[in-house]
C-alpha cells in the first residue's frame, strides 16, 4: 500500500470531516433516552432451548386481528443445546431443521455474532445496553440471513431470579430457554426462524411463573404482564394515511396484550412505551417516533396528544401547515403526519372544537425541534 496514498486520504478526510462543526451535545435527550433504554426497554422475542420442538406453524392468525401479513406456513424443528461459556465468550448453539447455528457473545468487544450454514458471519450489533432493569427479560432481536434461511437472533439478559423462559408455540409445543450465568448476569440466546410464530413467552423463577408476554405479530415481545393480568384489549386504528410525492403512506396502530405498536407504510414497526406514560397534566403533545430517513422520499412523524385536543395545526420547516386530528386507540390519542425528507415540524398549535372556519379554541402552542 502506498504511503503517499495513505497520507493523501488522511489529509482529505481531515479536510472533509474536521470542518464539521456540530451544534452542542443534546445532553438531556441522551440522558433521557439512555434512561428509557435502561428502565423500560422493549423486549423482543425470544427463543432457544434444550429441547426439540416440531413446529407446524399454521396457526390461525395470532396476528390476524392486526391486519398484518398472514402467517407463513412452515415446518421447523428447532434444537437448542445448553449454552457454553468462557470468560470471554458465551456461545449458544443448536440446529434448525438439522442445520447448525451458533450465536456468540464476545464479552471484550461487546459484539454479537451469528454463524452457521446459510448465514454470512456477521456482527449483529452490540449487547452493551442489555439490562432487564426490573423486567423479567430484556431480549433483543436482529435479522440474520435472508430468504427462506432468514433467522432471527434472539439474545439478552434476564432478571436474576429468572431460571428459564418458555416459548409456547400455537400448536402446543414448548421451547425452553435456560438462563446461564455469565459475568454476574443471567443470559439466554438462540436463533429461530425469522417467521416462527409464538403464542406467548412465559418467564419462570424457582417459584414458578412470574410473568408472561403475548408477542406482537409473530414473535416480537414488547411488554410483560403479571400472571392473570390481561393488558390492553386488542384493537387497531388507522392513525393517518395520505399521499406524498406520489407515494401512499399510512400509520396503523395496534393495541393488545403486548402493549402498543404502530406499523408504518415503509414496513417499519415501532412499539413505544406509551402505556403508562400518558401525557402529563399541562402538556399537550409528545412525539413518539420519526421514521423514513436513509434515502426515503418522505418521513413520518408520530405523536401522542392530550385527551381534550380536537386537532393540531403543525407548521413545517418550509412554512406550510398541516392539520392533523388525533385518533383514539386504547384510551390514548395518537396522530401522525408525513413530510418530505427535507422538512420537519417546527411548531404546533392545539385546538379544541371543530376547527372549521376558525371556530376551534386554542388550547396551547409550542415550538418543537424533532429530528429524524
Amino acid at each position, binding site marked *: 500500500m502506498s504511503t503517499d496514498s495513505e497520507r493523501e486520504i488522511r489529509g482529505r478526510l481531515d479536510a472533509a470531516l474536521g470542518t464539521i462543526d456540530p*451544534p452542542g451535545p443534546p445532553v438531556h435527550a441522551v440522558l433521557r433516552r*439512555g434512561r*428509557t*433504554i*435502561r428502565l423500560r426497554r422493549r423486549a423482543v422475542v425470544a427463543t432457544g432451548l434444550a429441547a426439540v420442538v416440531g413446529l407446524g406453524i399454521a396457526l390461525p392468525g395470532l396476528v390476524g386481528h392486526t391486519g398484518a401479513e398472514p402467517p407463513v406456513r412452515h415446518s421447523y424443528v428447532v434444537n437448542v443445546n445448553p449454552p457454553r461459556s468462557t470468560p470471554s465468550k458465551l456461545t449458544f448453539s443448536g440446529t434448525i431443521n438439522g442445520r447448525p447455528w451458533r450465536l456468540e457473545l464476545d464479552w471484550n468487544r*461487546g459484539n454479537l*455474532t451469528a454463524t452457521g450454514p446459510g448465514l454470512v458471519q456477521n456482527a449483529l450489533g452490540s449487547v*452493551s445496553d*442489555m439490562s432487564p432493569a426490573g423486567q423479567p427479560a430484556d431480549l433483543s432481536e436482529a435479522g440474520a440471513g435472508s430468504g427462506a434461511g432468514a433467522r432471527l437472533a434472539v439474545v439478552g439478559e434476564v432478571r436474576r431470579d429468572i431460571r428459564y423462559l418458555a416459548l409456547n408455540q400455537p400448536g402446543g409445543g414448548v421451547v425452553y430457554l435456560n438462563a446461564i450465568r455469565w459475568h454476574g448476569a443471567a443470559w439466554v440466546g438462540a436463533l429461530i426462524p425469522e417467521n416462527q410464530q409464538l403464542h406467548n413467552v412465559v418467564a419462570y423463577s424457582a417459584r414458578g411463573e412470574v410473568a408472561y408476554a403475548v408477542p406482537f405479530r409473530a414473535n416480537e415481545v414488547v411488554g410483560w404482564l403479571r400472571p392473570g393480568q390481561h393488558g390492553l384489549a386488542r384493537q387497531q386504528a388507522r392513525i393517518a394515511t395520505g399521499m406524498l410525492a406520489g407515494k401512499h403512506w399510512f400509520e396503523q396502530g395496534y393495541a393488545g396484550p403486548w402493549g402498543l405498536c404502530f406499523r408504518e407504510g415503509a414496513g417499519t414497526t415501532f412499539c*413505544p412505551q406509551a402505556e403508562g406514560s400518558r401525557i402529563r397534566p399541562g402538556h399537550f403533545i409528545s412525539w413518539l417516533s420519526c421514521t423514513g430517513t436513509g434515502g426515503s422520499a418522505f418521513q413520518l412523524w408520530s405523536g401522542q396528544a392530550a385527551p381534550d385536543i380536537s386537532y393540531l395545526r403543525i407548521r413545517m420547516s418550509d412554512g406550510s401547515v398541516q392539520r392533523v386530528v388525533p385518533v383514539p386507540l386504547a384510551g390514548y390519542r395518537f396522530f401522525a403526519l408525513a413530510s418530505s425528507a427535507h422538512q420537519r415540524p417546527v411548531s404546533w398549535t392545539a385546538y379544541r372544537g371543530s376547527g372549521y372556519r376558525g371556530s376551534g379554541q386554542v388550547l396551547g402552542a409550542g415550538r418543537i425541534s424533532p429530528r429524524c
Partner: protein
Amino acid sequence: MTALADTEFTEFMQGRWAQLVRLGYGLTGDQHLGEDLAQTALSRAYASWPRVRRTGNPDAYVRRIMVNANHSRFRKRRVDERLTGEVPDTAAMAAADVSDDRAALMAALMALPDGQRAVVVLRYWMDMSETEVAATLGCSVGNVKSQASRALAKLRLTKGLAEGMKP
C-alpha cells in the same frame, strides 16, 4: 445511576460529541444521521455506563456501538427513534456550503462497502492502529489490512479523487 456518574458521563459526552458526530458523518455521509448515530451510541453507553466505564476505554466502546449501529441501521426490523424537545434545532448543512472536494470524497466513501468505509474512517481519519480498528470492528488485523488496501485501491480509481493519490 448516581449524580456523580451522571456528571462524569455528561463531561464525557461533552468532550466527545463533536468527534463522534464527525465519525458518524464519515460512516453515513450525512451530518444528521451522524448526529443520530452519535446520540444513539451515547444513549446506549449511558444506559450501561457503569459497565462501559469498567472496560477502561469508553471511547472504544462508544465507537464500537456507532459502527455496529450504523451496520444494522437498515437491517433492524424495528425503529426506536424518539423525538425530544431538547435536541438542538439547527439547520442542515446547506449543500452549497459543501466543497466539491468534500462532496467528491464523501461520494467515494459512500460508494465503499460498510466495512471498508469503516476501516478507512477509523484507520486514516481517527488514526487508529490496525489492531484497534480490528478490535472495534470485531475482525482480524489481516482483515483490516486487506479491507484498507481494497478501499484505497477503489478510492484511487474514483474520478475526482485520483489526483494526488499515488498508486
